[in-house]
């Protein structure tokens, strides 16, 4: 009886693990093979590193090194917007958690509502707004909406409302701090884990946002990587037969596409590793007697 139960459990676990892991493995292995080999060889076979190098050369040659441009665009948009998000969102969360001003509850509720609203739902009104401000097609049309990140405000709010002992703030006030100094010298350094968290989530959200930049940007040289990838996709003969040859120099096939998507994940992974180092536990150890 016990053995059967264990067997069933293992079976379920392995089935699901395989279901989710196989596509990832396939994707990682895809750039090592030629487009033909991708179809004819075993799906989980390894090709050669030389093939990866070839795929990169094809990808990089596409439309005059535009792939690099897309990555740099994405980094620029995401880092700028995330910097604004952190600079605005963390003090905002602090104010909402510990301030005492009229309208606090209303703002908090609005933050929550904005947070649960799907980003895509706002793209049309944001487009109209940006259009009215004549910002469509400029970098601001991406950076400004990206910088609006209520989830970051909420994360900071939760941290300050629950984890930070009020006595610390009172102590700093008695020690001669102005309200701003209290935030800057006590509340902010102690919120390092939350700053890292907000940074990470904001960066990932901005990096992966597809629909908004697609809508507001016209020139493919301005595209962030996510929009670029879809451009790339439509240049791939296997996905878009209309592109299929006709003397064009487009060398983008499935291995190149796989490589492009894999490389697009690398910056996110790096940001994750960097912010994870700041997510140290026990920041507040020894502050107050529990």
């Amino acid at each position, binding site marked *: 009886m016990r053995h059967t139960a264990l067997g069933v459990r293992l079976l379920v676990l392995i089935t699901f693990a395989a279901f989710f892991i196989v596509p990832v493995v396939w994707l990682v292995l895809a750039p090592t093979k030629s487009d033909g080999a991708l179809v004819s060889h075993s799906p989980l076979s390894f090709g050669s590193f030389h093939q990866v190098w070839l795929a990169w050369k094809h990808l990089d040659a596409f439309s005059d090194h535009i792939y690099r441009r897309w990555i740099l665009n994405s980094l620029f948009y995401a880092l700028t917007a995330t910097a604004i998000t952190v600079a605005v969102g963390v003090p905002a969360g602090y104010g909402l958690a510990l301030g005492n001003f009229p309208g606090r509850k209303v703002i908090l509720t609005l933050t929550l509502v904005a947070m649960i609203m799907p980003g895509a739902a706002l793209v049309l009104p944001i487009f109209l707004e940006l259009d009215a401000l004549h910002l469509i097609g400029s970098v601001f049309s991406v950076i400004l909406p990206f910088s609006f990140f209520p989830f970051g405000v909420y994360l900071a709010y939760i941290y300050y409302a629950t984890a930070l002992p009020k006595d610390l703030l009172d102590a700093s006030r008695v020690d001669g701090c102005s309200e701003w100094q209290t935030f800057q010298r006590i509340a902010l350094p102690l919120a390092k884990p939350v700053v890292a968290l907000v940074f990470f989530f904001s960066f990932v959200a901005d990096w992966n946002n597809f629909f908004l930049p697609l809508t507001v940007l016209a020139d493919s040289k301005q595209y962030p990587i996510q929009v670029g990838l879809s451009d790339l996709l439509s240049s791939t003969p296997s996905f878009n037969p209309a592109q299929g040859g006709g003397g064009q120099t487009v060398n983008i096939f499935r291995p190149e596409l796989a490589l492009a998507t894999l490389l697009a994940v690398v910056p996110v992974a790096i940001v994750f590793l960097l912010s994870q180092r700041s997510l140290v536990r026990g920041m507040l150890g020894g502050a*107050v007697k529990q």
Partner: protein
Amino acid sequence: MARVAFERVTKIYGDGIRAVDELDLEVADGEFMVLVGPSGCGKTTALRMVAGLEEITDGIVRIGDKVVNELTPKSRDIAMVFQSYALYPHLSVYDNIAFALKIKRTPKTEIERRVDGAARILDLEALLKRKPRALSGGQRQRVAMGRAIVREPAAFLMDEPLSNLDAKLRVQMRADIKKLQSDLGVTTIYVTHDQVEAMTMGHRVAVMRKGKLQQVAAPQEMYDNPANVFVGGFIGSPAMNMLEARIERRDGNLVAALGDAAVPLDDETLDRRPALVGYEGRDIVLGIRPEDLEDASLANGDGRPRLTGRVEIREALGSEMLVHFEVAARQAMTDEVRELAEDVGDDRMLEQYVSGTQPAVATLVGRFGPRSRVVEGETVEVSIDRRALHFFDSGTGLSIA
């Protein structure tokens, strides 16, 4: 250094609760004033109003000659020690102590001089580079003290600074803080719920109850002459025994009758408390401190009034013996007595109070000599030192004098 004065200071919270009610109190320059009372009596709120961490609803707080009501904490020149210590966890001990000086842009050499001085006084020299989380409770407490003393402020405010330490360390720190305060001579307001701290540390003690000041006096004066039932019951451990008694005239002399016993009121007592005569035929609350009760067999027949009781518990402490015994009298049941019972968590007393059933027996505590031979479950003759009896009005709770 400066005096600190409360003038009719009131704090009403948003929900209408009067945390502090028309507090009038003047703390002299260099004085060590202890604010004491059960939890929720408003003592911490009063302290935080001096610090500027709590808005003052009404009245005036002065530090020196300056009205500080509208000043932010930073412009009040006070230092505070928090119950939780509130050390900055991301800063080293040195930086914690130096923090206020850095904010004030004190020259670096001066900061070093003062921090080193404070560290020497508080024995923190070896710990200056550590972070608070690497310190023991006692060390954290000393860092919190250090943070206050480097400021050289007009006044120290201390909010139950010892309540998180274990008993032994608390006794040590009690003495240390007292000495430090007298060495520095800085005006200090010290909040505690521990009446032993109040008795041992303060030049004067202010007892609060439900936001109202009950009495301000030097510790011994307060112990000897409590202004009302509440102060009498709160100051002193074990607490004062409170009994219902009736002032009657027997054979031409006034007595306080409790149960089947009667304590004659001699001329000395009546001289000190002339108003007692007016209570003839009325009920009062009679307060007897445990040390004024003695095993009659040790008191060798000195003609003192006696009570007969049955021993419930005897606690031999070596130098003395605490004896709980039942006598045929009624426990006084006023609001004050109930609140005191609540404060110490005396459920049995509370139950009687709520149900209104007062048994005709009251349990008293006596502080007997160590050679007392009382046995649990047997009767005991107890003699009363009537010079130290306390008499309170049962209605107002005020001392009858």
